[in-house]
């Protein structure tokens, strides 16, 4: 017998005796209800895009992520120029993307483009990373990135400052919506990596005191474009 067969046969043998179901009388009805949507239990999200953006902003504040609504790509670029100057950026990491290309070239910084591969030391030397994303999640203040939309796995986590460029129409109400969106977009052919980023990296491992910037980025800046 292979290991697989050993384990599966143990499971099948063990399951021969039924365990009590939490809701014997309403089993099937509740199952379809709860699998339809956990939305009814989770914190509520506003119906309109404006309400969702506002909720996202409040969450970003709580998470100590910087959130800014930009008038257009020029506005975003000017903001980033100021940010780069204030933080002394010399080199940034980025990937190929419409928004990135509209903003990055005129920043006047050295660039590591992860598209097609990169040298780790180069990326490690970047002061910031500029990426796009899949969606923004209003309910939690999260950004969903993937290897495709954010230049791979490491770009959005290795450099100490992560900047995300997103459009208004990328805002979705909650995690359920984000996951459904991903399922519809990728149709089973998912990127090997998808991640919900919710604020800058943090730890509470020292006396349960909150410290920002553990191993991932210490700073997270989210720029929302029309």
């Amino acid at each position, binding site marked *: 017998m292979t*290991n*697989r067969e*050993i*384990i*599966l046969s*143990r*499971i099948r043998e*063990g*399951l021969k*005796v*039924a*365990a*009590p179901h*939490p*809701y014997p009388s309403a089993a099937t009805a*509740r*199952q379809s209800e*709860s*699998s339809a949507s*956990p939305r*009814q*239990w*989770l*914190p509520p999200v506003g119906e309109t895009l404006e309400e969702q953006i506002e909720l996202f902003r409040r969450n970003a504040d709580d998470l100590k992520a910087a959130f800014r609504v930009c008038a257009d790509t020029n506005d975003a670029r000017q903001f980033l120029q100021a940010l780069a100057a204030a933080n002394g950026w010399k080199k940034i990491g980025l990937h190929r993307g419409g928004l990135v290309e509209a903003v990055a070239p005129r920043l006047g910084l050295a660039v590591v483009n*992860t598209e097609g*591969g990169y040298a*780790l*030391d180069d990326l*490690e030397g970047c002061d910031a990373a500029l990426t796009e994303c899949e969606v923004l999640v209003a309910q939690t203040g999260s950004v969903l990135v993937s*290897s*495709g939309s954010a230049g*791979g*796995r490491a770009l959005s*986590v*290795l450099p100490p400052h992560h900047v995300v460029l997103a459009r208004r129409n990328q805002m979705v109400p*909650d*995690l359920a919506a984000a*996951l459904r969106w991903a*399922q519809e977009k990728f149709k089973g052919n*998912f990127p*090997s*990596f*998808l*991640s*919900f980023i*919710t604020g800058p*990296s*943090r*730890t*509470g*491992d*020292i*006396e*349960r*005191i909150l410290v920002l*910037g*553990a*191993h*991932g*980025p210490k700073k997270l800046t989210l720029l929302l474009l029309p």
Partner: protein
Amino acid sequence: MNVHAREFNESARRCAADLTHRGLIQKALAGYYTKRDENQGRFQSWSGARDAAAEIKWEAINHLDRYLEEFVSRLEARGTRVFWAPDAKAARDYIVSVARRHKIRSIVKSKSMTAEEIDLNGALEKEGFEVVESDLGEYIMQLRREPPYHLVFPAMHLTRQQISDLFYEHLGSEPTDNPEDLTAIARRVMRRKYCEADMGISGANFAIAETGMISITENEGNARLTTSLPKVHVAIVGIEKVLPRLSDLALFLPMLATAGAGQALTCYNTLYGGPRQPGEPDGPEEFHVVLLDNRRTELLADAEQRDALHCIRCGACLNVCPIFKNIGGHSYGTTYQGPIGSVITPHLRGLQDWKHLPQASSLCGACTETCPVKINLHHHLLHNRRNAARAATSPLEKILWAGFALMMRRPGLYHWAARLARALQPLHGLVQGTLLDPLRAWAKTRSFPRVAQKSFRELWRERKTP
């Protein structure tokens, strides 16, 4: 008493009397309670969420074979190598063989209690591989050569001073009592490790059957780095981690964060569905998922306690357990601490050797009340006690309870015994504190009440005859 029970008693006694430890843990958890309540309050119905989560886990565990097969077939379709490990040794041997085949020099690891369970680090180190824990709390405990104190907060029992001393001793770093500076020290050390490591080992919080992905929940970003940079990624995953659908995460990720850490959502929740795919700029060349049984199927076969496999390892039960808070995580002497540890350890490691864990509880039920997936934890402690007594009764206890039952079935005998106790109580002073003292265990720290001059029954009878 076996060695585990003896060690448990010694450690528990020491820790329970340690007022510094008691104060530290109370302080550490105070913030958790406040934030947990705040975030639970934001749910439209935390209780409804628990019901839904319990049902989803029931579905997953009671159809585990089906969901595991679905999970594995989707993983394998995208190039992941899956190893089914019937026991700890098989899992260890496989992972060592992967490391050997790739001539791995340095391994970086993110937090995994499953890896702790099988002592994976020990096995790798014995084979000459360097393994570095990347999670700050785990790294601290690795330097101290101690197991994690808590499922989720490995170093919660340490002060910043102790951590500073530890870093000074092992890294030669500047002593500091600033948590930010201490974190920065670990961050610098770890960055080198991530960049140099050629193998990353992780656990997984959930295994999604529908899409063939593992999901990892963290705050620090160390798991993301562990799984992005090295050329080989090995994930060790208990078979019970399965969730049926991707959409289930919309419920479980917030619940895990809130129950586990008092957060609305943790910083990074990442889904891994395969090694680097064509067109992706980075990611491991090889991705291995090791599915671990290691006696979980025995717990599965116990239909009464099967729901203990619903556990999402959030640690909430530890955080509310008065026993855990007073004896500390290390007293348990085993991988999984607290109420869930006391429920599953007898199944995973042997009932007779570990029955003292379910016995060391006042059955207050705070664990069951807080569990996000509604495991009947404190009742399972009772079930374990009953199973232990059935399997191997201690002759002394058997006599004690048989005698108790005999007496209590005969009201006359019971009342006679009570009158005897009442008569003898004034003489208690003669044996007090000695081995003959029946109240010794109680009376060492607490006064014992007087047996009443007249029992209720006697007072009641008096009442009727004016």
